């Protein structure tokens, strides 16, 4: 027997509330853990971005120094390296909501959850590298330290906003991308009106509520 629409809807709502509630719990937990892990993560990002600067710059003028939770960008000048910019701990904020979302997703086997968390952090790490290196290089152009043609200068504002959007919205894309198969299964079941069996993995992350609701 198919569930009624009302039952399905109430199941959906309760599952989303459950997702939000669990998210808040893990978010608070990770918020405290994140403060401890930030210096370590910052050192890794600092080392990796230093390598990326060596690849993208000719000559290499940027030096990255990780100091506690902040990443300092130094630029080589005639007087030696001088501070140019810095990124504080909050540039990595997305790691916390992303992990909280993965942990909060209901009905996910632990192995898959761990794999997703690892993949998410790895993708976010790449996103952070792109954001930091991109921001610095665009800032060089903006203040006239990297000479470019007028055409390139004309799209500078665009590039800066797009990079900012990429940084801000990237975590959503990563999370959706990692869980798209589950959502697709869930959406398929919802649209076709199938109930499925609560507890089966193929029901997707929200299926428990749909079936039990």
């Amino acid at each position, binding site marked *: 027997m198919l569930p009624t629409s009302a039952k399905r809807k109430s199941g959906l709502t309760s599952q989303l509330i459950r997702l939000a509630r669990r998210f808040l719990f893990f978010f608070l937990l990770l918020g405290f853990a994140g403060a401890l892990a930030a210096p370590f993560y910052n050192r890794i990002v600092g080392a990796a971005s230093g390598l990326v600067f060596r690849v993208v710059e000719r000559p290499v003028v940027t030096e990255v120094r990780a100091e506690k939770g902040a990443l300092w960008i130094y630029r080589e000048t005639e007087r030696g390296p001088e501070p140019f910019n810095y990124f504080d701990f*909050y540039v990595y904020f997305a790691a916390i909501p992303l992990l909280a979302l993965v942990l909060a997703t209901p009905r996910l086997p632990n192995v898959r959850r761990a794999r997703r968390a690892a993949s998410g952090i790895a993708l976010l790490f790449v996103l952070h590298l792109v954001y930091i290196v991109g921001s610095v290089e665009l800032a060089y152009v903006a203040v006239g330290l990297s000479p470019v043609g007028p055409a390139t200068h004309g799209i500078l504002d665009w590039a800066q906003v797009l990079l900012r959007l990429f940084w801000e919205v990237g975590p959503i894309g990563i999370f959706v991308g990692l869980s798209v198969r589950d959502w697709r299964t869930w959406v398929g079941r919802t649209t076709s009106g199938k109930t499925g069996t609560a507890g089966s993995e193929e029901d997707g992350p929200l299926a428990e509520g749909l079936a039990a609701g």
Partner: protein
Amino acid sequence: MSALVFVASGATFAGLIAWLAGSERSLAAFQGGIAAIVSGILNMLGNHTTVAGATVRSARFSISVITACTGLSLTAAFFAAVIAYPSRLAAKLAGIATGAAAIFALNIVRLVSLFYIGVYLPQFLEPAHLLVWQSLLIVFVLVLWLFWAGKVAHAPYKRKA
């Protein structure tokens, strides 16, 4: 959901925001409008604020509504997800309208709360601004989309037993 459509529509909206931001004056009115609404709410709550451009000023604390504070990027991500999701045009339009209003409203709540945090708990302003509210907006957009997908988008496909 078609990943290709999601990426394409996301890129289109991102380009649109970048174009608006790049032309400087285009977003100024929108930012000023947000500042005026925030100031109006704060004044209704007994504060004495004024608006100068996109800045809400008071004797105790001031906030500036910059491009990143408009919530446009998350709105664009939501629009892209709604457009990419297989559903009727009417459901998409309903999702876009409702989602834009909901994200806009939450963003106003965010700005008002940040003003109060800045006044009464300034030591928590940075984490509240850059960590807590950013994260809450992300999960809000996600839950909003799932809610829309489950409640509205599948409605045309409902079958009777």
